């Protein structure tokens, strides 16, 4: 149907071209003013998002490639080291600069930060730097290279200098490599850590695996509930909806702790099972994968239910009638006519649950065992305990990238764009 709508650009009754152009300009001016006003209204929110969300996350992600500690504290030595070709030992100038920089940094109180940074490369570096600076301050020799070598024989080791050179480079890929259990070895090529030392790759795959399981469990449990919610008479529907919403309002920590109490070896569930004579020994339900899955599924369930319900509510029951009148048995009608129409909700629910699960923290920490650490727990350890913000930033960057990839996949599969809530 080609309806012609008189647009201001079209100017149906425009007498000549000049008039048309003027009119178009005036129209655009008004449009611009309108959009400026709209932007002004949204400005507080945009500002808030910028300050509290985009800027901190951007900074954190930037940290994964920044390497400022060593260049700031040891400026001269860093500069000279960048021109060192790593073939022979560094020359006397570099030794001298390093000795001067170390003394200077120590006096200015910058050495601690450098020591901690170098510690991430090699745990021995920390003591080496601190000890050398201490000895150099007492040494009054003019030959700084000799003084440095005298303070510790390891200064004669090329590997130490190579590590210092890497630490002086900014931006650096090292954090991003470390986050996937890799590093740059002596020859300058990327190598992987031996499997027994690798931590993060396993944690990433565990995170994805747990998130997938939780998503599927939620889908399985939520679909029938959402159907019931959408098809019950309004009064009963509201009551049932309350049951779904109330846990949603309850504190996450409270809910997790409640599961902790319920699932213990001598907790409610195990007592019940052994009381009924179903089990002779308590089943391990907590501090393992089972506990994590139960806890997380329970907490994620409302998201899934609400996402699917919002779509189901809009599907008229007349479609099922139509399908039956066309000869489809109720089950066939449900599968071929009802389910496909709910896919947008299923996709949105799965995406929501999956992405939230990827970054989950408290529940796996409280209900999981040693083998159930998810990636955000490791990020937290790096941020709060190890103070290795670079590595934390790198791990977070991967998490963001994963999320983006999964968004793309889900969007391709079910078209989240088409979804409307409410």
């Amino acid at each position: 149907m080609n309806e012609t709508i008189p647009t201001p650009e079209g100017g149906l009754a425009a007498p000549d071209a000049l008039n048309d152009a003027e009119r178009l300009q005036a129209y655009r001016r008004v449009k611009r003013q309108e959009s400026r006003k709209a932007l002004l209204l949204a400005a507080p929110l945009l500002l808030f998002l910028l300050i509290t969300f985009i800027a901190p996350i951007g900074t954190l992600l930037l940290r994964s490639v920044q390497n400022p500690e060593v260049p700031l504290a040891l400026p001269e030595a860093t500069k000279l080291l960048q021109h060192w070709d790593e073939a022979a030992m560094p020359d006397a100038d570099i030794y001298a600069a390093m000795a001067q920089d170390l003394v200077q940094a120590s006096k200015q109180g910058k050495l601690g930060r450098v020591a901690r940074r170098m510690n991430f490369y090699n745990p021995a570096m920390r003591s080496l730097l601190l000890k050398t600076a201490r000895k150099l301050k007492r040494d009054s020799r003019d030959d700084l290279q000799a003084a440095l070598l005298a303070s510790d024989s390891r200064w004669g080791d090329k590997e130490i200098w190579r590590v210092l050179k890497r630490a002086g480079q900014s931006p650096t890929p090292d954090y991003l490599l470390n986050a996937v259990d890799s590093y740059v070895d002596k020859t300058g090529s990327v190598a992987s850590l031996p499997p027994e030392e690798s931590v993060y790759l396993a944690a990433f795959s565990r995170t994805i695996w747990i998130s997938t399981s939780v998503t599927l469990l939620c889908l399985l449990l939520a679909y029938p509930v959402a159907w019931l919610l959408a098809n019950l008479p309004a009064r009963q529907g509201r009551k049932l909806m309350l049951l779904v919403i109330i846990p949603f309002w309850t504190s996450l920590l409270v809910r997790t702790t409640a599961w902790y109490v319920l699932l213990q070896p001598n907790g409610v569930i195990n007592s019940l099972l052994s009381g009924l004579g179903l089990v002779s020994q308590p089943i391990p339900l907590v501090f393992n994968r089972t506990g994590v899955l139960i806890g997380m599924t329970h907490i994620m369930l409302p998201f899934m239910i609400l996402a699917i319900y919002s779509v189901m509510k809009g599907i008229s029951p007349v479609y099922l009638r139509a399908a039956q009148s066309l000869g489809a048995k109720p089950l066939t009608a449900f599968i071929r006519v009802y389910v496909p129409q709910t896919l947008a909700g299923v996709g949105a629910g799965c995406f929501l649950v999956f992405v939230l699960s990827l970054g989950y923290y408290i529940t796996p920490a409280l209900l999981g065992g040693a083998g159930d650490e998810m990636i955000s727990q490791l990020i937290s350890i790096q941020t709060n305990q190890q103070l290795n913000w670079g590595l934390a930033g790198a791990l977070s960057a991967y998490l963001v990238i994963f999320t983006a990839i999964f968004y793309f996949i889900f969007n391709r599969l079910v078209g989240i764009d088409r979804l409307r809530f409410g």
Partner: protein
Amino acid sequence: MSVAMNHADQPQDSQAFINLSDVCKSYDGRDYVVYDLNLTINKGEFVSLLGPSGSGKTTTLMMLAGFETPSQGEIRMGGKRLDDLPPYNRDIGMVFQNYALFPHMTIAENVGFALSVRKVGREQIKTRVKQALDMVELSHVANRRPSQLSGGQQQRVALARALVFEPSLVLMDEPLGALDKRLREQMQYEIMRLHRELGLTTVYVTHDQSEALTMSDRVAVFFDGRIQQIAPAHELYESPHNAFVANFVGENNGLDGRITEIDHATATLTLSNGTKIRGGVSQNLRQDTPGMLFLRPEQVRIADGDLNLGNRVQGLVEDIVYCGDHHRVHLRLSESDRLLCKLPNSREHCLPIAGSTVNVTWRIDDCKVLSPLLASHQSTSSPC
């Protein structure tokens, strides 16, 4: 009000295809949505169920389709009891009010759905879907989605979908309600053409009387869960059985009065101001009881000079409304009685002047005295 089901109106044909006998439907056991319904439909017949909302017509349709079960009585189709069959085994095609096309399927998939659940071969589905879409002249949209079609097109697809599996009965639940007037008329002819060409048996639910009158072989007027009258369109319009049908189908000058005289062919109705009007006799009339006049506005003529067609009354012209092809003249006969008169818009009829007093006249055969209507059942009349 009496159940004006006249069995003489029903074809007492042994070939009766659909048979609803003594069907009742109640949701709570006290109030009946459908009460004591008897309806016979022949093969190839087009029957409309006409009535205001809540009159039980849709419930009747849903019982035929199998989405509601009768509380009492039985429904037979082709001699076979339908009541125990689930909707998907009834072999009944249905067109729904808002089309109910499956939004996630293409038009071809929608039309082919009934065939694919019947496990018809892929090639055969293709040809039959093509045929069905050709029939409604929509083959070119086969690969589009319902949302990309206009209302009229969706309606035609819904028709094709309901007909593609050659059902023995087609039900339509106010299928044209969502279309604009022009399109609705066009679709009426389309449905009538398909009905004729394919020899369909059709039950059509509507609250639009003109739709029912133009399309159907017979119209069943529903009110209060009962069929008030079932008859061909002209009979319904010209000779309603009771006051409800008279007021619901078309327009009526329903003047109230007392029945003062009955002989074998005519009855006399005396209005509150003493005016006597003579008209045909209907059933169940008793002398000295309240009565209601049945008189179509187009039968009333302005009496020039001494013209008297049998009934002649005087009235004050209150208002004249121009309606394109006719004028509506509102006359006041007395404090309580108003008479509406439709004058064709032609040069032959000169219009009275508002505020003047005129005489109007009509034939005795053109009006009828009926038992009166309950107060709540007044028809609402529009300005045109």
